[in-house]
């Protein structure tokens, strides 16, 4: 018991120290590298908190996609960083920001410390009603049955996010291929990795979706792994990202939310409420939604990282220069 306490305390101190360093670091690229390590520490902490579902999400997103996004952004911003450091805000503004941040931190700490003990919880109610859904994993039960509206909105909001990224495209670029993930260089070990790893990654991704009904895992974790494999193939230059005007790709982007909304609307007729499932078909319907959402979330995550489309000549030039 005591040794577990020591490990937990060490993890908390490490994650706090690393967070401080990331905030204070002057070069964005180094800070982004620190953030990758920060994600790993958070994964371990979620495991220690027995929240394995969240740990899997953090492992899949934090060590895979977030690193690519942040490092890519930091690399693009690097040329302007020096100028940005010279435009240092005045002392008054810095003190004001510090005071506001401290107030927010104190407010959060107060909320956590003032929670009633034991904290209010619906866990027992979920455990009592879980058999009706045919699922074994309470997290999936809450996400797909009891809080289905939240999950629906979460999966729909990814599509506007992608539209937001695409809207950064120039007039000439519209309809072309996303230009953020042009292949790095040939002759490195990357193409080999991109050939060997995806079969295993796809297997693990599908396993996470399928096992999510009864064990930790689920569509978001599985989709994050699948998207990571797709991105790996694009970065290695083995496959080009699809054109944003591709109709099949656009259909895949929305098939999950459409499936969810369709089944939810049918629930008004068949089970008396929007997003209610008829008792006998609860599990097959939930699995159908999960599969549809997995496809859409994979496509959206992959295209989010692939960035806005660029004009064809620019895309060709980038690819040539790197290979």
């Amino acid at each position, binding site marked *: 018991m005591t040794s577990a306490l020591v490990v937990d305390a060490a993890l908390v101190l490490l994650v706090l120290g690393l967070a401080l360093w990331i905030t204070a670091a002057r070069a964005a690229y180094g800070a982004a590298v620190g953030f990758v390590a920060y994600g790993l520490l958070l994964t371990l902490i979620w495991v220690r908190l027995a929240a394995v579902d969240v740990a899997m999400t953090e492992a899949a997103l934090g060590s895979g996609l977030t690193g690519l996004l942040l490092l890519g952004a930091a690399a693009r911003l690097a040329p302007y960083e020096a100028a940005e450091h010279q435009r240092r805000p005045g002392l008054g503004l810095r003190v004001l920001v510090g005071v506001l941040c401290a107030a927010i931190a104190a407010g959060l700490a107060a909320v956590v410390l003032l929670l009633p003990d034991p904290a209010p919880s619906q866990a027992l109610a979920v455990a009592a009603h879980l058999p009706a859904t045919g699922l074994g994993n309470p997290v999936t039960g809450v996400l797909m049955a009891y809080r289905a509206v939240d999950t629906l909105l979460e999966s729909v909001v990814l599509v506007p996010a992608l539209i937001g990224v695409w809207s950064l495209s120039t007039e000439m670029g519209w309809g072309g291929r996303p230009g953020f993930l042009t292949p790095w260089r040939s002759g*490195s070990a990357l193409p080999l990795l991109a050939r060997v790893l995806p079969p295993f990654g796809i297997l693990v991704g599908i396993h996470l979706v399928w096992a999510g009904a009864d064990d930790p895992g689920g569509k978001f974790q599985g989709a994050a792994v699948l998207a990571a494999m797709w991105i790996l193939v694009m970065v290695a230059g083995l496959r080009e990202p699809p054109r944003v005007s591709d109709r099949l790709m656009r259909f895949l982007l929305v098939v999950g939310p459409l499936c969810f909304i369709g089944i939810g609307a049918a629930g008004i007729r068949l089970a008396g409420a929007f997003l209610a499932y008829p008792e006998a078909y609860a599990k097959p319907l939930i699995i159908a939604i999960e599969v549809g959402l997995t496809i859409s979330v994979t496509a959206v995550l992959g295209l989010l990282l692939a960035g806005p489309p660029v004009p064809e000549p620019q895309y060709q030039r980038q690819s040539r220069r790197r290979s």
Partner: protein
Amino acid sequence: MSLALDLFTIVAVTLGAIFFLAGTVGLLRFPDTLTRLHALTKADNLGLGLVVLGLLPQATAPFGWIGLIAVWLLALLSGATVGQLLAEAVRPPEWDQARTPDASPVGHPNAPEASSHD
């Protein structure tokens, strides 16, 4: 039999932990990035490999063994790739020019870094 297997676990996991320690010491003490890379891949391959080897007798079903070995094989693959990628990224540009005289230094990821002293 069980005692022998437990002993095997203890010896293998301890050896694995020592390789992790060695990897960390190497990472902290070695003089430059390429040699530190060397220390890292030792911990990846041998440290994790010995831990997995030691855990095999303790894992239950055949699926437990498959899972453990899969983790190690994946770590071997990514360790080898990471070694190559990072080595390529930190390799001094002169080495490239010495090897292929017509290679243009433009486009190499090794632009000099000036602001790392923070």
